[in-house]
């Protein structure tokens, strides 16, 4: 939890500093003051419809201008944020397989029919038990197995086809660790699943392990890491925006 708080604070601070650097602070400040003036007008001249109408129109156009000014820092922030979250999700978002709890291994194939003749065999590392044979899901080109962790383990899961073997990292136990939920083949999917090397070219498009979601408890609330980080970062932004003289 302390890690998430530190992360949230660091993120909030970075957002503030980046905003100060890449946005037009003067124009944003000016627009905000003008919008406030419009709001005052609406409040003070509530019995003068013409004034209210003009103030509302001006408020709309000022808002559009404000959004335009915020768009640039938002776009600059978005890309590293997405990348950061896709890196953090495998660590904070998922937990290793819990002992005695069942989970699924799913393999997506480019073409299932070849596999209909000879199903692949799943070979887990010690500590992980395979409870079902391969179930080939025709029509959607998936193969599934049910597995169960019997003790803490970390190693390679092997999916053995007649034509070759594909491996996937797997972990069980209570120690948090960086997890790879899915090992993918295509480069563009690597952006979402960056924690394991890509699969070699072949019939297997991805291999996935259904790790349980992780939730963090604090003050009686149990929430995902993402919500906590957002909360801490927003709190940091609100507290530090004045001392750092950042306007948004």
């Amino acid at each position, binding site marked *: 939890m302390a890690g998430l708080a530190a992360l949230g604070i660091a993120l909030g601070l970075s957002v503030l500093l980046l905003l100060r650097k890449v946005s037009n602070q003067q124009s944003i400040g000016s627009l905000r003051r003008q919008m406030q003036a419009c709001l005052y007008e609406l409040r003070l001249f509530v019995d003068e419809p013409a004034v209210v109408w003009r103030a509302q129109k001006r408020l709309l156009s000022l808002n559009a201008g404000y959004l335009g000014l915020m768009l640039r820092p938002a776009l600059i922030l978005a890309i590293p944020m997405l990348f950061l979250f896709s890196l953090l999700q495998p660590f904070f978002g998922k937990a290793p397989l819990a002992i005695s709890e069942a989970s*699924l291994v*799913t393999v997506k194939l480019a073409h299932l029919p070849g596999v*209909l003749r000879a*199903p692949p065999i799943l070979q887990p590392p010690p500590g992980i038990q395979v*409870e*079902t*044979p*391969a*179930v*080939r*899901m*025709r*029509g*959607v080109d*998936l193969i*599934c*197995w*049910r597995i169960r962790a019997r003790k803490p383990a970390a190693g390679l899961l092997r999916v053995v086809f007649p034509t070759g073997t594909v491996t996937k990292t797997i972990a069980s136990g209570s120690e948090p660790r960086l997890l790879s939920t899915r090992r993918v083949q295509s480069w563009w999917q690597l952006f979402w699943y960056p924690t394991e090397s890509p699969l070699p070219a072949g019939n297997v498009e991805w291999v996935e392990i*259904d790790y349980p979601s992780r939730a963090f408890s604090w003050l009686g609330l149990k929430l995902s890491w993402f919500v906590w980080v957002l909360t801490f970062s927003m709190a940091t932004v609100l507290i530090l925006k004045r001392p750092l003289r950042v306007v948004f």
Partner: protein
Amino acid sequence: MWVSSQLNRPLLTGVCLLAALSQMACRSSKVKSGARGKRIVVLGIDGMDPEFLEKHWADLPNMDRLRRQGEFKRLATTMPPQSPVAWSTFITGMKPAGHGIFDFVERDPKTLLPRSSMGEITSGGISLPIGPYSLPLSHGHVETYTKGTPFWKILAAHDVPVTVLRMPTNFPPVECEGCTSLSGMGTPDLRGTFGEFSWYTEDSNRVLGNVPGGNIIPVKIENGQALLRIRGPDNSLRKDHAQTFAEMHVYPDPVNPAAVFETGGQRIVLNEREWSPWIRVNFPLIPRLQNAHGIVRIYLKQVHPCLEVYVSPVNLDPAEPDLPISSPDSYSHALAESLGPFYTQGMPQDTAAYREHVFNKEEYLAQSREVSTELLKVLRYGLNHFREGLLFFHFFGVDQDSHMLWGKYDDDLLETYKLVDRTVGMVQKRMGEGTLIVMSDHGFTTFKRSVNLNTWLLGQGFLALNDANESQSEVGFQNVDWSRTKAYSIGLNAVYVNQRDRERYGIVAPGVDKKAVLRALREQLLAFRDPENGKPVVASVFAPEENQTALSDSAPDLIVGYYPGYRSSWQTALGEVPRELIADNTDEWRGDHCVAPQFVPGVLLSNRKSKASDAHLYDLTVTMLSEFGISKPGAMIGESIY
């Protein structure tokens, strides 16, 4: 003038303080000093039979020790000895004429259609029509028909901590400040029935359609998958109340005996002959805006050569039930948080699936044991949170298993009794000091001959048909000639006089005429002989009205007490008139207790000796109150056994 005076303010404060203190004193004095810290645990083992216990003490060491330490005796049951009747007596301390429950099934005198005697769910009155929808502006509600005050409400009113778990005929749970309850028998599934399974089969030789307790539905595998449409509740938000469905896709492996099931973003893999964990299913009421939801369990019976999948009745989700199943509402949520999902329907052992040969005996027993194991976790939870006061837990496994195993599979039934015995041992260990009562509402006997009571009434001239060549095999007495019918039967023990101004087509005048009909019925019922073997069929006939003048219109006029071996047929329960008078019972439902009550007493086991030479269910109600220093309310008829 009063409050503005500075001199009066301290006086006012003092008066308020004094009032508060005296109220606190009153509250704490409600619990008599001798009753504080007292602990009573009552285990209600539905259908536990004294003779079966007596034959197997050696295999039931904990209950054997209990009877040696305290006592064991027979516990008189109600007339008729049916669970909803007997438990209502235990709950209220009144006879059936007092609490108004006489059978599982009763008839509505205005429509003559059968209905549950325990209660019904009604929709709200005012609604707003929008297109195909009719949005309710007032809430529907769940109505219970049981009269009288439940004992736990009386205990709670006297500040005695009380928890009642899986209490029969407590749906919806009685609102009760200071007590905790979880409803049991009588709790419907999400569709409002007692529990209807769905059986999906690729086997074209199977008889398809609605069967008692379930639906057998054809399924086809296309492109490697089959679609199961799970029936949900009728959509009360639509004008046409169309049925809702949840979709589940099944992908059986082409060779391996396993399949993948997908619904609502959830995916599970099952081997053949495996049960799934609980799965949440959503039924759209207004697409993307409003769903009803429940939980189901799946049993993959077979993958090859034909796919066969059993889906349990859709249970209310205890984490967020769409109908009230606990008081307070948060209690079922707390249980689900701690234990995970569990069976909430009142009678979860799927005897219907066994009777329809969807389950074989082993599959039925596996499901029954699973239910029992799951619900015993609720008892453990209750015990973990039990400090003082009263804790009650109802266990249904013995009753349901006895119905299916009695007289033929005693070894299997003994395993169920052993589970109870281990539970008794666990409770004794955990509860420490206090009174432990292990009781049952009735015993068991065989069910060999099935009596079509309406056919008997027809033969004796009490009932007439429009077309004598057509038997009546539809619910609702379609072929009955009411202008010549004086009496009919519906339910498992009840006979109703076709009374004028009460029944829809009544012809018998109340008073002298009705008494004459009742007298004739009684005499002829007691003279009723089985044409196959000449044995008497009816041991006793009881008229509730004789002892109670103010009965409701739904109360029966006569209650038939059969000899062991005989029981009203399933067709009689729904008001049918088959051709055969008495038939052999070839059903898997082989044991029963809907006979004259003296043949099926219940059990009273306790770690204390009682003063009562014989005890009745309603005596236990008074006992539970008097142990906490609460005097017997006027409506209750029993005496404390201690």
